[in-house]
């Protein structure tokens, strides 16, 4: 392997009790690729995303991030779960943006952004602040550096959350329905930031209902339903000329 893909997921299964949330999901994401995952609610797309940075642990199958086995260590014919520190170290290299923003409520925008670099990566405070200010500028929120999350709109909170994830200098960014909790008029500003990020060459996996964004920004689209990947291809193939009837039904329902 000269340069491994950013993400390789092989045969991922996940059960919640007797409910099978993911069955045999396998996919690859190349470096610099922007992958969109679409599908009806309950289709397992968020669960799959959460397995990638181990907020959920897969019950079967394995995921490699940039060539490194995620969450486990191979010894003989078994995979042993890693400890808290090692999992935390792996997560630090993956940025995650949540549907409900999850900014730390007791910290200002700036404090939210420098928390990871200073506390987790132990970088010098002044350097982290400089970089955070650059990131705030990049998401268009320099004026809000000292605002608490409760004083920001949903769109502003989500942009700070993206800056917080980027401050860790991740090699991969995960977006879990980043615009679903936003008022319609605030969706655009968040998608704009994500579009810029995609153009900068960041590897991204985006779970979304924004088919317009998927068509315009993604290199590849995956359609999931009932815990499996039904169809995958270019935006043109999946969104415009879907082959599978379930994909057709879903896209018709979303566009209606």
């Amino acid at each position, binding site marked *: 392997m000269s340069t491994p893909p950013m993400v390789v997921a092989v045969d991922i299964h996940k059960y919640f009790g007797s409910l099978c949330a993911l069955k045999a999901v396998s996919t690859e994401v190349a470096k610099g690729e922007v992958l969109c995952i679409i599908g009806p609610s309950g289709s397992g797309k968020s669960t799959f995303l959460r397995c990638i940075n181990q*907020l959920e642990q897969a019950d079967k199958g394995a995921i490699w991030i940039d060539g490194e086995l995620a969450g486990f260590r191979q010894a003989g014919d078994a995979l042993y779960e890693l400890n808290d520190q090692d999992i935390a170290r792996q997560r*630090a290299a993956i940025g995650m943006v949540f549907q409900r923003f999850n900014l*730390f409520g007791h910290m200002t925008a700036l404090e939210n952004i420098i928390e990871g670099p200073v506390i987790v990566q132990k970088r010098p405070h002044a350097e982290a602040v400089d970089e955070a200010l650059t990131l705030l500028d990049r998401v268009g929120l320099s004026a809000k550096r000292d605002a608490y999350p409760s004083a920001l709109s949903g769109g502003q909170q989500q942009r700070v959350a993206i800056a917080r994830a980027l401050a860790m200098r991740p090699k991969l960014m995960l977006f879990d329905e980043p615009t679903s909790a936003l008022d319609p008029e605030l969706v655009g500003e968040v998608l704009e930031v994500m579009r810029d990020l995609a153009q900068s060459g960041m590897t991204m996996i985006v779970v979304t209902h924004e088919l317009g964004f998927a068509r315009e920004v993604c290199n590849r689209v995956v359609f999931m339903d009932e815990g499996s990947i039904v169809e995958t291809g270019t935006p043109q193939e999946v969104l415009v000329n879907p082959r599978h009837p379930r994909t057709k039904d879903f896209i018709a329902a979303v566009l209606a």
Partner: protein
Amino acid sequence: MNTRPDMGSLSGSGGELPHRSDYSIAHLRHIPRRFFRRWLSAAFILTAFGFVAHAFATGQIEWEVVGQFFTAQSILFGLGNTVIMTILAMIFGIVLGVVFAIMYMSPNPVLKSVAWFYIWFFRGTPLMLQLLLWFNLALVFPTLGIPGLFEARTVTVITPFMATLLGLGINQGAYTAEVVRGGILSVDIGQTEAAKAIGMTRLTTLRRIVLPQAMRVILPPVGNEVISMVKLTSIASVIQFSEILRNAQAIYYANARVIELLIVAAIWYLIVVTILSIGQSFLERHFSKGVGKPGVRTRTAVSQERSV
């Protein structure tokens, strides 16, 4: 004020419209409602209070004795002991409370059971009984120590001060553990997930993200418990800890000025509790940052009712 009544906005109201000329009263002055029953009840309470004040003023209380003993050395010494014990027992209790709350929420069944037993035992038995148990520990273990390292006679280690500190602190810890657990549960799970996502370990997440936000929920009840603790120290008089009430009693056994010395103690308790309450409100303000707009308190049910 001087704009004409807008007929258009009323037309949608449904019911029959009064005649146009009836709107001409809209410019009249508004007179607030009068609350006669409030005046009546206030007058009644003031009268009753007057009687009580009069009774005390003419009763057999030597107020000079109150003044004389207010700053007596033994009273001030007891006051110092009360304050020191409150602070130490509370610190001990909060540390135990946080530790046992975290243990109680741990996925490890052994840690969880131990925490459950601790809370069950120390909340389930009277504080005075616990104080007597600690004070009489020497009956169970004549000597204390780590074999080979050091050893001491229990009676010299477990002084009234030590027994009180252990009794109050460990008892407080059992209550604080439940308060801390409630505070931790009040923090949204999304906060923990976001912390994990930037690579924090479980303990760092707890220390940096969850506990600071839980403090907002934890502080008001803990503040109440500090105030209770000031008064609970008086129970330690049964094991000869010389706090303020015990020293006041020692004086009135000698001079028979029972009520006067009880008043001295009561005033000191009130002073300490008042100072603590002020400190509590400052702390609560500090830990509520990021919640709502700074300086603006959310309206409560009571304050709303008042303005109706």
